[in-house]
């Protein structure tokens, strides 16, 4: 049996330690998913806790019908989307965190590198933000969270083919947006 499902079933039967273990396995991924979705570092951990709180509250109704991670990211997507809508968060550069949260490598952690990383992070965020919601979520799940197309399809409640299509269309749009930042960027014809 999948370890996540086993931990969730133990949580269902009253073992809070199992839920702690489940959180340890996934909280970094959820925090970073929310961070990239909202681009707000400070709120990411609070929102991630809200995600786990929702799961914990509904533990008695849990049925192991799908992978735990798909359920987790579905809730994380809903929480992030609700937060963005509710707070009417201005996802402009003004709201972005200056720290960026990068884990600096001492050898390359120089000022130029930091400036580059800040700029590229902002550029990528804005490019992602310009995508339709499902294309953005599909790329975030597959690229950053390492979900398979099948798992992303479960999160998005669509077919695997649709996820591939979202990723493909998203990538095409990202090429246009990020072309100036590619080494040797240029036009491609038909």
């Amino acid at each position, binding site marked *: 049996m999948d370890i996540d499902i086993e931990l969730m079933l133990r949580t269902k039967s009253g073992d*809070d330690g199992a839920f*702690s273990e489940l*959180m*340890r396995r996934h*909280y*970094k991924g959820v*925090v*970073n998913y929310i*961070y*990239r979705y909202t681009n707000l*570092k400070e709120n*990411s*951990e609070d929102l*991630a*806790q809200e995600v*786990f*709180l929702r799961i*914990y509250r509904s533990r008695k109704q849990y049925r192991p019908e799908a992978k735990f991670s798909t359920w987790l990211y579905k809730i994380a997507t809903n929480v992030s989307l609700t937060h963005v809508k509710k707070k009417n968060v201005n996802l402009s550069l003004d709201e972005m965190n200056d720290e*960026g*949260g*990068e*884990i600096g490598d001492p050898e390359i952690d120089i000022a130029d590198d930091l400036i580059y*990383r800040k700029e*590229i*992070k902002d550029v*990528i*965020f804005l490019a992602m933000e310009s995508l339709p919601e499902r294309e953005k979520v599909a*790329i975030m799940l597959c*690229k*950053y969270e390492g979900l398979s*197309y099948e798992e992303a399809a479960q999160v998005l409640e669509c077919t695997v083919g649709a996820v*591939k*299509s979202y*990723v*493909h269309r998203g*990538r*095409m749009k*990202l*090429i246009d947006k*990020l*072309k100036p*930042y*590619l*080494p040797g*960027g*240029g*036009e*491609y*014809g*038909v």
Partner: protein
Amino acid sequence: MECSDCRELIVSWSSGDLPPSGIESIEAHIRECPGCRLYMTQSDRVWNLLDEWRGIEPRSDFVSTFWDRVAKEERAPGWDVFSYVRKLRLSWALAGALASVLIVGIFTFALFKPDSGFETYADNDARDEQILLELDDATTRETTDVLSIYGPWENRVEIMKINGYGDTN
């Protein structure tokens, strides 16, 4: 193969999700199509560029903070009324018995309670009737006074006789 088909399959190809036959046809197309070749290169580069947006390192006390939050919310009044009821561990039979006693009590009280509402209604009714009678009397007196200009009713027979109208019998 059309360029649009090829570019759609490039995503699957780069993620190793294509059957051998698909790989062969894509490779054949890319060898002859510089546009798709450039698209494939840029697609891969964009995909790799996304890695430049690095993640954040959450606080190490995430799990303990979570449990603090759970404890705080459970202590908060009115957090979840049903959970408190559940904690009482009342059996369904006991809950049913309590509900039955409550219903019987309400009906018994309603049945034997002196119905002061009816008396109030009767008093009001009598008072209204009295007011109507007084009004009727007043109207009658007023009407009598108005009609008195035509003389006393007891002389009417005599007047008719005088005027030659004959016997009223």
